[in-house]
């Protein structure tokens, strides 16, 4: 061990009790890779530990690597609207650097002060505003990563448009770190918007589909359209995010939150227009500061590190994600709300993504039964079911990455080529990866 890399403790990943190493330089990280490959052990990069309960249970012994010391800003050519940073930088630190210049990375973070950019890329992080701004995949212009040879390789570049070479940026985004250790990324930036607002619609369970149709035909162009059941709304209220209508939530219906972000005139026009279009759902408008915390709260629902830490002890929330065609999502949400008696149910209505946050103490048999029912419906609607976080026992009993798709075979072929020895985060992603 040398002074640019020290062991800072141990960490539990599933059942694996791993030494946690903290490299201060890329060279030190590279040595860890080389050693892992030579000894046929595994390397588990760790960022903010906000998603360590995502994925299957790893079994290969090895070393956990704390990436948070590698958090430098390499280059920020402000006028070019790009930034190059090391992967260990937290979203919060990055956001502060950017906002000083009137810029941002328009991705919702589950825990800005903990979550690292590398971890967000590995999981293709997104939140409510993915409808308007896309997911992280749309912002990664260039990437550097350590290969199984311990060498730093790159793909993409630092300019906003570039088609030279294969787009490994896309491949690494959402690959859960199984193709190499991401060390550096160049991101495309957006200007900070002047104005934002959220319009809340209140509808009874039976009206959700009608509301979805109305929103689909709206003249407005929201950046987010989210559905929350009463329990989810109350959970947000408990975190100090004001509840637009406590009375309604007690009657157990749905809240639909429609968000806008643009110049102030466009936001104002859209709020007014939408309020007319959805008048029967008694719209309420949130403006003037609370919107950010609403979006952030919604993103972190069931995901905050506090809750995750409690998960292994049986409290906190575990999250199941069900996907379907957007037009069919109300059906999935309705079923979820019926069967998940104690669950918080939310959904990105126009992206076809639903989430059920269940208390960690929910009995396993109930969870398995729920997952089967939901998965059946999701599959019929072209989607799938993914366990985004959960206690070890759940992750052993529910297919974490859903019902296998034929194209998983291609993912495995790619993995065999890029990480033949199974060094990087083995056992956590798709079966066989």
């Amino acid at each position, binding site marked *: 061990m040398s002074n640019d890399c020290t062991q800072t403790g141990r960490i539990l990943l599933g059942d694996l009790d791993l030494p946690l190493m903290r490299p201060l330089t890329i060279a030190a990280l590279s040595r860890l890779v080389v050693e892992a490959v030579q000894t046929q052990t595994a390397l588990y990069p760790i960022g903010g530990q906000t998603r360590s309960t995502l994925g299957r249970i790893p079994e290969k012994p090895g070393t956990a690597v704390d990436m948070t010391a590698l958090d430098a800003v390499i280059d920020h050519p402000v006028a070019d609207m790009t930034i190059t940073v090391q992967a260990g930088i937290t979203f919060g630190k990055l956001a502060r650097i950017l906002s000083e210049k009137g810029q941002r990375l328009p991705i919702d973070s589950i825990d800005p002060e903990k979550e690292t950019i590398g971890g967000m890329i590995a999981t293709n992080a997104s939140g409510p505003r993915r409808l308007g701004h896309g997911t992280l995949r749309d912002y990664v212009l260039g990437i550097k990563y350590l290969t199984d040879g311990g060498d730093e390789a790159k793909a993409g570049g630092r300019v906003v448009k*570039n088609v030279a070479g294969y787009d490994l940026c896309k491949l690494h985004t959402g690959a859960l770190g199984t193709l190499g250790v991401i060390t550096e990324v160049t991101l495309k930036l957006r200007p900070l918007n002047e104005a934002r607002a959220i319009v809340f619609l209140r509808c009874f369970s039976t009206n959700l589909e009608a509301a979805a149709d109305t929103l689909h035909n709206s003249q407005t162009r929201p950046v987010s359209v989210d559905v929350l059941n009463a329990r989810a709304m109350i959970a947000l209220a408990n975190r100090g995010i004001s509840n637009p209508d406590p009375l309604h939530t007690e009657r157990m219906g749905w809240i639909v939150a429609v968000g806008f972000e643009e110049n102030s005139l466009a936001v104002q026009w859209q709020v007014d227009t939408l309020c007319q279009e959805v008048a029967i759902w008694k719209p309420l408008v949130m403006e003037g500061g609370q919107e950010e915390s609403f979006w952030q709260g919604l993103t972190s629902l069931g995901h905050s590190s506090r809750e995750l830490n409690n998960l292994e002890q049986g409290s906190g929330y575990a999250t199941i994600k069900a996907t379907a065609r957007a037009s069919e999502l109300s059906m999935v949400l309705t079923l979820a709300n019926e069967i998940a008696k104690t669950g918080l149910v939310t959904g990105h209505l*126009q992206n076809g993504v639903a989430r059920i946050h269940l208390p960690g103490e929910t009995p396993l048999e109930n969870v398995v039964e729920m997952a089967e029912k939901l998965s059946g419906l999701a599959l019929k609607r072209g989607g799938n079911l993914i366990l985004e976080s959960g206690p070890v026992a759940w992750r052993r009993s529910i297919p974490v990455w859903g019902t296998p798709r034929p194209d998983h075979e291609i993912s495995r072929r790619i993995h065999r080529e*890029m990480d033949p020895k199974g060094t990087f985060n083995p056992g956590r992603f798709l079966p066989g990866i």
Partner: protein
Amino acid sequence: MDKTILGKLREVVGPTGMITNDSELLVYECDGFTIERNKPEVVVFPNDTDQVSRIVKICHEAKVPFLPRGAGTSLAGGCLPVGGGVVISLARMKRIWEIDQRNRFALVDPGLVNVWLTNQIKGAGWHFAPDPSSQGACTIGGNIATNSGGPHTLKYGVTVNHVLGVEMVLPTGEIYTLGGPVEDAPGYDLTGVVVGSEGTFGIACRSYVRLTRNPHGYRTLLGIFESVDDATATISGIIEAGIVPAALELLDSLILRAVEEAFGFGFPLDAGAVLIMEVDGIEAGLDEEALRMEAIAKKCQVREIRRADTEDQRLLLWKCRKQAFGAVGRLAPSLCTQDGVVPRTRLPEMLRTIQEISTRYDIRIANVFHAGDGNIHPILLFDERDPEQVKKVLDASTEILDACLAMGGSVTGEHGIGVEKISFMPKLFSPVDLGMFFRLRNAFNPEGLCSPGKMLPTAGGCNENGHQHGNGLEVMVTGKKASP
């Protein structure tokens, strides 16, 4: 080619589904990059995915190289049949299988011409966002293979941001659907990595593409500047001010003259540069954004600002822009359209460099490009019949692209590497980077039979067949090149 292979192919596509005679094959010996040519042995025209798969299986078993081809508008030699073999033309596969407005996607064939999709849905208020200048001719399969951009990709993103899934025939003939209309499919982002793979991972058949709502309104301004520098300063100013324009396109004086001659739009012929500035979206707020852009242009000594006030004017303006390549063909017997990228802030410097290279080589260079993205398209004017000029154009192009790299940019923003720019790959990427590209390609195309000699260099700069690669030049010969 072995008669039995031809016989097997005929069984799949029938006698009217293939071309084997020499004169007809001529069309398929190159694409918009005409400096290198090679005749395929046969061109087949499958009707559906199943036929594509059967064709590929035949090639795979016989170890014959094969290559997908859309409309052949590639400017980088992507359609050059290196090593001969079979060209699989997707031209007959042009159905729209499904349009699902509610879920914002369409399922379309690879040979569908880009603009046809938009024409089909525009009445309902939708469009397909990638709008390459060649959109009247190029195919969606070709857009996917090259990850095409266009003027409006500044705001809306390039092709990869609008493709949800692709039905692929792998080089073994296996059929896989990657991704699909439902978001967040578990597994690697296979769609993302297949887009832009230039036909080297297999053949994209049907694809799920994203539909985009039409904006409520546009404000299209034409800034007339004394100098290119003032125009590029305006671009930086607009971006820095936090405006996200739909498009920022620059035309220099040489292009202006050609376009004016062709379309009589009324461009001032003595201007140093014209900048098309467009914002779009919700009506409310558009006037203010347009005024802000105008104020920035004024600060940068704009001589005059005109507005495209009617939809007709706006469309004419865009027609001028999109057909600028065609118009410039009047100025010289041969054209070489380059494609490079620099960080936006380096544009003034880059354009001065191009000017200097033009003077030094005594080669006229016209510029019309996606300025907001820093994506330059210098067009070198010359006469292909004069070998000395050809050499000058080659060297000047190489210098321009090297300058892009020196400024931290790239040698291609949207046209691709193809065969043309393979020699630049080792300048852009280290052996380690390239090694990983090879590994990835092996996962899809281990035998290299599908689109051989494209994208990646091989040791010594030669491919498996000893074929010498291009050297940073693409030549569009006026008259020989059908411009869309």
